């Protein structure tokens, strides 16, 4: 499918530090693409370069093969966001819609629809300073989608939201994608992203670490792990077959990371008797753990997978 946004070989240096280095990815219509990474990885810088708020040192950004980014076709929710304090909710929504060239009447009716959808009925004439933080976030989200953008860029859309509002946002994002909007979102909350995104791009210290579709990434990286509670010596556990690494969680709990091609039932059958087991569980590494792993000890994954990160 034709990508709606194409980012190629983007680099940006602040002072002497390369904040993003040779970043390339695409966002397609109907799909949710996530840029993931720990704080300071370069997610917001990448997004600001796409939005033209910063100018990249190298590389290019194109929207439907056009280097001129049509701002009124893009919806944007920045990471650091707020609203004018002493104005009414409807006034600010209409102003932001007006800046995107939406006719006033249409903007008003769409704003009312969305306010209803986000449980903000009757709030249109309330001053922004009277809104709670969550309500303010909802109004900002509405402002980003009021003009029916073809591409929606959301920088940390879930931060600061309660679980109910998170669900609401997730549903709306899914719905927008289903209706044909290309969505690029950044987050460090893996569990939320895992549920909704189709493809991901993991970035660390300004460089690409992993990218691909969610299923693909899981297949490639989400190996099995086995958690054992019992009185054992770590070196004994390390000697077990197909164990690549052992983490000691506390005195009696160990996490055994297994190699990629391990056959779990066969592996369990061969389990030696001398290992003390009070509790035992086997499951796959979550995206969250991959992420933590990369953020803290990327060398482990590196060794296990034999992948060389750029």
């Amino acid at each position: 499918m034709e990508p709606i946004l194409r980012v190629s070989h983007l680099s940006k240096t602040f002072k002497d530090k390369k904040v993003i280095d040779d970043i390339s990815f695409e966002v397609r219509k109907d799909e949710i693409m996530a840029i993931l990474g720990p704080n300071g990885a370069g997610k917001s810088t990448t997004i600001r370069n796409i939005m033209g708020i910063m100018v990249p040192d190298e590389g290019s950004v194109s929207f439907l093969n056009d280097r001129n980014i049509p701002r009124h076709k893009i919806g944007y929710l920045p990471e650091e966001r707020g609203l004018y304090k002493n104005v009414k909710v409807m006034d600010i929504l209409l102003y932001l819609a007006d800046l995107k060239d939406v006719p006033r009447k249409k903007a008003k009716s769409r704003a009312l629809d969305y306010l209803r959808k986000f449980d903000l009925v009757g709030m249109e004439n309330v001053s922004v300073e009277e809104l709670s933080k969550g309500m303010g976030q909802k109004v900002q989200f509405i402002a980003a989608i009021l003009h029916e953008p073809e591409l929606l860029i959301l920088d940390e859309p879930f931060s600061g939201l309660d679980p109910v509002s998170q669900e609401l946002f997730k549903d709306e994002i899914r719905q927008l994608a289903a209706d044909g909007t290309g969505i690029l979102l950044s987050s460090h909350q893996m569990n939320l992203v895992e549920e909704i995104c189709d493809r991901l791009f993991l970035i660390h210290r300004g460089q690409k670490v992993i990218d691909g579709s969610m299923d693909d990434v899981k297949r490639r990286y989400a190996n099995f792990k086995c958690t054992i509670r019992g009185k054992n010596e770590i070196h004994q556990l390390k000697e077990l077959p197909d164990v690549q690494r052992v983490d000691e969680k506390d005195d009696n709990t160990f996490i055994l990371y297994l190699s990629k091609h391990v056959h779990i039932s066969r592996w369990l059958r061969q389990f030696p008797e001398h290992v003390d087991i009070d509790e035992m569980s086997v499951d796959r590494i979550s995206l969250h753990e991959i992420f933590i792993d990369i953020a803290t000890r990327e060398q482990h994954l590196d060794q296990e997978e034999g992948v060389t990160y750029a």
Partner: protein
Amino acid sequence: MRNLLKVARWEIKRNLKNRSFLIGLFITPAILFGFMLLGNVFDDSDHREDPTVVYVHDKLGIFDHIRKTVDQHQLNWKMKETDIREAEVETKLKSEERTAYIFLDDRALEEGLIPVYTSEEMEPAFMQQIHVLEFPIQTMKMEQLGLSAEEQAAMSQKVHFKESTAAEEEGTAMGGDPLKRALPGGFAGILLLSIVFSGMYIFQSASQEKKDKIAEIILSSVTPGELMQGKILGYFVLGILQAVTILGFAVPMANWKLDIPILEYLLVPEILLYVLIAVLGYLLFSALYVGVGASMADITSTNNFQGMVMMLPFLPFIFISPVIRDPSGLIAQIGTFIPFTSPGVLLLRLSILEEWPWIEIFIALAVLSVSIYIFMKLAGKIFKTGILMYGKNATPKEIWRWIRT
């Protein structure tokens, strides 16, 4: 351009809906004129306490007519009819203050003579005020002479004609009238001050944009240049609004209290130059304010450098007394050519000077225009980066780096 206008419209609308702006809009002129009124009230109280008592010995039967005329002119007279004889008046007046006796009898009609006796202590303006009685007596005289209504009208017209020629003569004599230059100059001063003050709102608005963290949302739709220029235009209109509000108070007040027809003084060609200078001054200061506003985390966190820049528009004040002492002197000329003092000093000089130094005016306008161009460019660079640095106060070193890039 369209986005620029949208931003300007929004800034205007937002402020007009803002209570504190509206209060400021009306309180500024109200305070200004409140003090003026207060002075007048004290001033008036002296007169009003003691009206002049005017006894009229009326044998012509026009007392009511006269009283109406006096009321119309709002003279502070207390009018009474009397039957006193002329011979008794002098003794009576010795024991009275602020009292007058007027005798209206045949002498008025035949000889045009009206005897007026006043007490020793008398309001100095009384003998002028009494001339308002001329008209009703004249009218009566004309009626007595048997003139028709048209003839009477013709007669009164003649009187008007005479008056207007007298006024014209006054007009030519008014070449030395200080108000002729000072009033338009003062008007431009008010204009400059009110748009510079509203320019300070720009600074507030830019730093508020940072504090509220909305800048990045706005910048996803407009360019930093459009946002900055939209703000400058918006607050210019608000400044004009402030000036118009002040004039809305000032013109009627001046007409009423001082009896100066302000509008006649203002609607002269010179006003165009005054307004041009005021507008240029605004553009220069607004560039400063928008730049400083964008480089600050919030209003309370000004550093010394920013504080100094903020004070620049008030620099002309130190030139006021030397310029008034010698409007063509060296200090006045220096003040004219320094961009930040130029608008204020130029306005002051042009209001005082009889002969305008056109060459200096043109040089000053050129200096102003070039400075505006340079400062707008610099402000644009500072604004572009500064407005997104949420919660951070830029150091002069950082600002210098933004300017160089």
